[in-house]
């Protein structure tokens, strides 16, 4: 029975490793300038974690195979080196691993969070609400008009709560349901939550950031490939959470300008 356990465990360990080794399920191609750091960090960790996983599982399997149901009265032996060896191993291997990954991870993290957006970054406001994303471009005057929650009227397409009646500056703001951005241009996304907590997740951008009501957060990124990608909500926000999504549309500068003009005419 012990030998059987060893076999089963070995099979499980190998089967578990197979899809990873063969890259059966991997993150989609990275379209951001910072994503490579995250991906490298991920694969480094995968290598070390995979080694630890297989090592431990196979060792367990081997020992169970070797030392289970021995004939009665067979003398028990003790591992030379004993606990000291184990503790030392843990500290040396895991310790260095921790330090290495910790330090490397810091680099990747810093690329995303410790760099300020450039001056010429394109500012776009994103509002998350139950259960859709809406986006606002400053329009002709290049300014975001102030928001008035009491003015929100979704039936009328006023998702942000612009005071169109009294605030002339608000009338040129462009409100859209898709996030179109020019390729290779830094985007500074200002994040605003309308009701509860939400999150902004684009797998290809390697960006995930919560919307926290009452907190003005922002992320900045640069997309390097044109195309349509999905923006999904990853913070449980209510019954429509699964259906809360929008499209990120990365366009060439010209197409983007055309798109923006067209949207402006719809307002």
């Amino acid at each position: 029975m012990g030998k059987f356990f060893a076999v089963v465990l070995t099979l499980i360990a190998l089967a578990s490793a197979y899809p990873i080794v063969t890259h059966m399920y991997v993150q989609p191609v990275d379209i951001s300038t910072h994503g490579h750091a995250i991906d490298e960090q991920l694969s480094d960790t995968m290598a070390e974690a995979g080694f630890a996983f297989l090592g431990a599982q196979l060792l367990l399997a081997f020992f169970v195979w070797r030392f289970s149901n021995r004939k009665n009265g067979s003398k028990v032996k003790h591992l030379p080196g004993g606990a000291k060896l184990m503790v030392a191993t843990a500290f040396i291997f895991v310790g260095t691993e921790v330090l290495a990954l910790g330090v490397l991870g810091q680099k990747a993290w810093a690329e995303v969070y410790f760099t300020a957006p450039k001056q010429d970054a394109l500012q776009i406001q994103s509002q998350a609400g139950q259960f859709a994303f809406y986006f606002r471009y400053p329009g002709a005057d290049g300014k975001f008009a102030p928001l008035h929650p009491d003015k929100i009227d979704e039936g009328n397409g006023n998702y942000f709560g612009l005071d169109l009646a009294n605030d002339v500056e608000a009338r040129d703001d462009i409100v859209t349901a898709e996030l179109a951005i020019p390729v290779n241009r830094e985007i500074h996304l200002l994040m605003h939550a309308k009701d509860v907590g939400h999150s902004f997740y684009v797998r290809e951008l390697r960006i995930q950031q919560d919307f926290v009501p009452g907190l003005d957060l922002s992320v900045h990124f640069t997309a390097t490939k044109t195309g349509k990608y999905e923006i999904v909500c990853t913070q449980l926000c209510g019954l429509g959470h699964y259906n809360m999504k929008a499209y990120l549309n990365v366009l060439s500068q010209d197409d983007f300008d055309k798109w923006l003009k067209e949207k402006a005419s719809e307002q």
Partner: protein
Amino acid sequence: MEEAVVQPAHVHAPPEGFIRKHIFSLDHKVIGKQYYGLALVAVFMGMALSWLMRFHLVWPTTKVPGLDLLSSTGAPGGVITPEYYLSLLTMHGTLMVFFVLTNAPFAGFGNYFLPIQIGAEDMAFPRFNMMSFWVTFVAFLVLVLAFVIPDGPPISGWTAYAPLSAVGKDAGPGLAWGQSLWAISIAIFCVGQLLGSLNFIATTLDLRTKGMTFMRMPICTWAWFITSAIGLLAFAVLLPACLLLLLDRMAGTSFFIPSGLVISDRLQNHAGGSPLLWQHLFWFFGHPEVYIAILPAVGIVSHVLITNMRKPLLSAKVIIYSMMSIGFLSWMVWGHHMFVSGMNPTSSLLFSFPTLTITIPATIITLIWLGSLYGANLQINAASLFALGFVSMFVSGGVSGFFLAQPSIDIYLHATYFVVGHFHMVMGVAAIFGILSGTYFWFPKMSGRMMNESLGKLHFWITFVGTYCIFMPFHYLGMAGNVRRYSSFVNDFMAPLMPVHKFISIAAFVTGGAQFIFLFNLIYSRFRGKQAPENPWNATSLEWSIPSPPPWDNFGGKHPVIYHDPYQYGVKGSKGDFVMQDSPEQV
């Protein structure tokens, strides 16, 4: 002068009558069984809920016959609505984390065996002990009440993030009375756990019998002791958090609700609250809770492994110190649940390092187990199989934690199925394996009858393979960016992942089904199992020195005297290759 002297409270007369014996009993053994029974009910409920979820995820529009009887609005015509899926999810998480993973390994086994293992006739405060269970039971009733009220169970997940959990009915079904019941239930639960932890600590400190020095306590006693210390702090923080949440919901305060929220076209009348405050308070409890679930299992498994390896661990001390350092570190890591929640990025790094550091004591524990297996005379039985399974799960769940501990990787993996896979492996399945191992090991002592070994082994094989089939693929889904807590996968990129989900669901049905073998075995053996001897496993600790089941005062009115460390195996003893803790013979 004698007048002032009365019987110490712990010496209570043998209970009379059914009520006193089996319901409002002061006997730690009965209370332990009550906790275990409650956990058993909760775990099968939780499992049924997960079945419904897995079913809905892969067959979203298929009717579940009869489900509309449970909730006509939640499942009109038997089809699960998005909000009802979230209700199932919330109740599954709450039942499992609080009423199973906290109750069974810690409160259940702990209550039953901690006093016995230190040679006490009962807990220090039997009345508190009884209260702690019945309080917990009320908490359970309050929680499940949410299933039958018109509003339905809450939909904000077991983490109940504010403001979703705080604003009330406008934010959706289940968030009116359902969410309030949840908060009330958890608050009550905290009281029960605080009473319990207090009891455990006082008992361990002051009721150890003669010769039972700290280092002579069995590893599981240590685990329960450390866990109760963690629980004391954790639940002492969750309780205020729940009270503040209730005030926001019912008294119109604004602890967690900021200004200017518009929900269902209604401007909410709150100002200045901080949603992150809830996250901090919750995770300050929430992360230690992981260790409240896993440490007792670590203790139980070590206890079972040693007995079945017929040799002591390379070093019990090292395991104990590792558990302590894990408990200690667990207080500085709560922020790693909030890497992407807008917390100051520097603090993310500060939280990341201790989190990664926890892998060191965890690795030490694992290596000690592995190293001790070398040269063992390993007995294979249901108990030891589940213990070995635990070691395997502990590793599998541990390594995935390595990814999530790093903020940069968490940016991509946060809130994907990778996380679901991780915590189910390490705190869900692993802890459950610990409970099952303990059950097969201690059932003879608790009931006086042996469990059926072949059924036990069958149960193990299906469960072991099944859980890997369920939870390993979760990690792959996470790698592909599959978002968690979705009631159906409408995103374009998730379509190709559906086959994996089908596989997982089927595995879940099979594995869940296997648990009924266990349930049958439990009930059958309780009444038909063959009589258990005093010490069926030739074990050394005190619980095996008394009859099975033990008398109401454990040691028949006297206190045992301890002569040895808990694990004298692989020695020449009068009874065989072991010497009991309380036997005076020299080793």
